[in-house]
């Protein structure tokens, strides 16, 4: 409090659900917006039910992974199955600048909260919807999980071992990415509002946003008709060798090594003690190394596997080679880089437990964000209904009793 963050004064009503939508709210909150996630005990967001729970005690306000991925959002509880609750949500929207949802197309309309209706109540409102495949088009009602959304972008077809089939990425990589991207969309719309006074509807298709990542392979298809497929950890455009992760000493320890330039190659050869194999004619040019990349990787692996990943990364860096340990989840809290940058931090939750979450994953030199613990359901009800919407104590109690505010 007291510190001025760049989006101070912007209020967001976040109807986002599960992961992508809540991350959009979280991002805007890190940047200073006042964000209220609209949710309900009537149908608890499934991510609140995910273990592990703080101190091992289950409860919708104790899910640790949920708190990490949502921290920053506030929470207002409204049972949107009830018309009165929808009316209150409408009041909240009228008092907001930005509305976010990641329902399927048409859901906000059915709740009486669609853009055409809301713009009549608040002409400069910005309403951002982020369904899987956008608000219209033949696939508008496609059902996907965040886990599989990438399949309809072409991205999944590129993941896997060389010459093998696609290997599924085991979690919704696209969810937090789309959430952060949607926050960018919201800020561009805010900028337009500042320039012109106009609000607008933002049709944010997660498919289209995430498909931007396949740009390089898309261009190869356009220019050469080539349909890319899995190639392990080789460079996406085949312009570097060696370029992969290599085994190190220990169980499931690996090092990433990427060699683009002649000086990096010379550094690697020197770090290895200039073994004869590395001085072979076929490896003397980048072109040769790329043409013989399988053999090169196999020979390099025989050397790396004799070394500890961290020590080897240090040694290779000393020789100017781009190398870094491949971290597992257990390494993240101890890794010197993340410790130094305070990537993860412990916060005190209002229910009295401490929890480890992530904070400002981008460092702002002037406006580092405030990091708050994950929200309890309805923690901001008093403030929103009494202070922002000016509701009487009597009515507020009545609505709580009748589980409209719930």
């Amino acid at each position, binding site marked *: 409090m007291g510190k001025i963050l760049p989006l101070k004064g912007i209020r967001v009503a976040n109807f986002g659900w599960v992961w992508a939508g809540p991350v959009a709210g979280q991002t805007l909150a890190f940047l200073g917006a006042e964000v209220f996630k609209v949710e309900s005990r009537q149908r608890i967001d499934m991510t609140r039910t995910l273990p592990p729970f703080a101190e091992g005690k289950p409860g919708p306000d104790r899910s640790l992974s949920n708190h990490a991925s949502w921290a920053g959002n506030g929470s207002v509880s409204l049972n949107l199955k009830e018309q009165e609750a929808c009316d209150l949500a409408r009041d909240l929207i009228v008092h907001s600048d930005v509305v976010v949802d990641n329902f399927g197309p048409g859901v906000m309309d059915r709740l009486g909260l669609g853009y055409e209706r809301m713009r009549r109540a608040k002409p400069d409102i910005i309403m951002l919807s982020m369904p899987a495949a*956008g608000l219209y088009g033949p696939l508008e009602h496609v059902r996907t999980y965040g886990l599989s959304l990438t399949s309809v972008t072409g991205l999944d077809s590129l993941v896997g071992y060389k010459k093998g089939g696609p290997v599924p990425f085991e979690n919704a990589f696209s969810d937090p990415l789309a959430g952060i991207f949607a926050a960018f969309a919201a800020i561009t719309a805010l900028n337009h509002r500042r320039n012109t006074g106009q609000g607008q509807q933002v049709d944010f298709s997660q498919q289209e946003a995430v498909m931007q990542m396949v740009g390089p392979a898309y261009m190869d298809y356009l220019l050469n008709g080539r349909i890319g497929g899995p190639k392990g950890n080789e460079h996406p455009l085949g312009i570097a060798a060696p370029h992969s992760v290599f085994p190190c000493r220990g169980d499931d320890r690996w090092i990433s090594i990427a060699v683009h330039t002649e000086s990096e190659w010379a550094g690697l050869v020197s770090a290895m003690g200039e073994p004869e194999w590395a001085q072979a004619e076929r490896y003397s040019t980048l072109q040769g190394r790329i043409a013989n990349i399988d053999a090169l990787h196999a020979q390099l692996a025989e050397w790396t596997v004799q070394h500890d990943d961290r020590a080897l990364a240090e040694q290779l860096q000393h020789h100017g080679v781009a190398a870094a340990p491949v971290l597992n989840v257990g390494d993240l809290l101890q890794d010197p880089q993340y410790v130094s940058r305070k990537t993860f931090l412990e916060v005190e939750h209002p229910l009295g437990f401490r929890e480890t979450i992530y904070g400002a994953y981008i460092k702002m030199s002037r406006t580092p964000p405030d990091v708050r613990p994950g929200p309890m359901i309805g923690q901001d009800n008093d403030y929103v209904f009494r202070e922002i919407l000016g509701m009487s104590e009597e009515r507020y109690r009545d609505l709580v009793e009748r589980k409209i505010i719930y």
Partner: protein
Amino acid sequence: MAESVVQAGSSRGGALAGIKVLDFGQMVSAPYCAKLFGDYGADVIKVELPNGDAARRAGPFPGDISHPEKSGLFFINNTNKRGITCNVSSTAGRELFLGLLRWADVLIENNLPQQMRTWNLDYPQLQAANPNLVVISITPFGQSGPYSAWNGYDLNAFHLSGASSRYCGRPGEMPLEHGTFSADYYGAIAGATWGMAAVYGRDLVGGGQQVDVSCAEVIAASFVGSQNIGLVAQEGYFDKRTGVGMPLGAPATILPCKDGHVWMLALESGQWAGLCKVMGDPEWATLEMFKDMNTRAQNADILYSFIQEWTAEHTKMEIMEKCQAAGCPITAVFTIAEAAEQPHLQARDYFVDIEHPDLGRIRNLGAPFKLSASPGGPVEPAPRLGQHNAEVYGRLFGLQTASIASLQDQDVI
């Protein structure tokens, strides 16, 4: 400096009209970040060293014949930008660059910190040139911390995030990246978001600032940390990759079919019933071991072999259409060609054609999101090397043609 310069961005309109951006980056992260500004109407000037952005040498090239003006990577990440050259290693070049900084609202760069120091262009010097400047620096490891001095690329950043060890690859085999520059793109998008907020709130917060993006950290926190850090902190326990989509529920994996692959997902009971119906209610599906998503997961190998007998007989689109109609979130794993030719995306005008002087008329991915009142997306092709030197140095700085020629002769631009 001339105030009345016609700005490429503002002539197109767009949500970010009026914002002036310098792209001093190469390859993917900074150029894509700057493209996001340009595609929504900012006036973006790309500043290249005399030998050009490395993306010009990266391809893909038509017919695999290298040509600095025909790189697909350069084309796709540099639309809606004017391009100039500047040799910042020279004293005169650095002076020109400082002049550009005074013009700009935003500088986006992805040089390693030691490189910026070598050029005497680290943040304190940038800030001294223009205290209102928002500097978005996107590097694999960030501007601070013990690895900030490390050499690194997209690959190193991605695998430092924990994402691959946890989520991608088979147990006992090497962890995998996506087959694209996923750390670069992730960092670019996050950098654009936080950087744009810094621009939006610049007057409110009292000036410019540095937005320090570590591609590794962004993924380690918002993707991997999000789902795992609470568990590892509280219980010291963590999971690793399994090679299937989801080990605790089934079906949830990619399976081969007649003409490729499908993402086979049917976890909830209604979804499973829908899938069974589409498969013709086979008798094996009624076995006790397949009664819910947990028991199906415990018997996943058997389950997947049964389902594959069926998928092998059907095409991906047939499976997707029938299963979607039956309420299952099952999708085709689109190849790049299928993704590029999708009727859905065509109906949404996701692809745009652009005339390029060297590549001819060529398609491009359009705007990543649709703003109803202020549409965005690529319009102008990526600039040729130094294409706008005369325009920018001449009209912006008021340099005469002769001075520009002389700067060229001295290899300053």
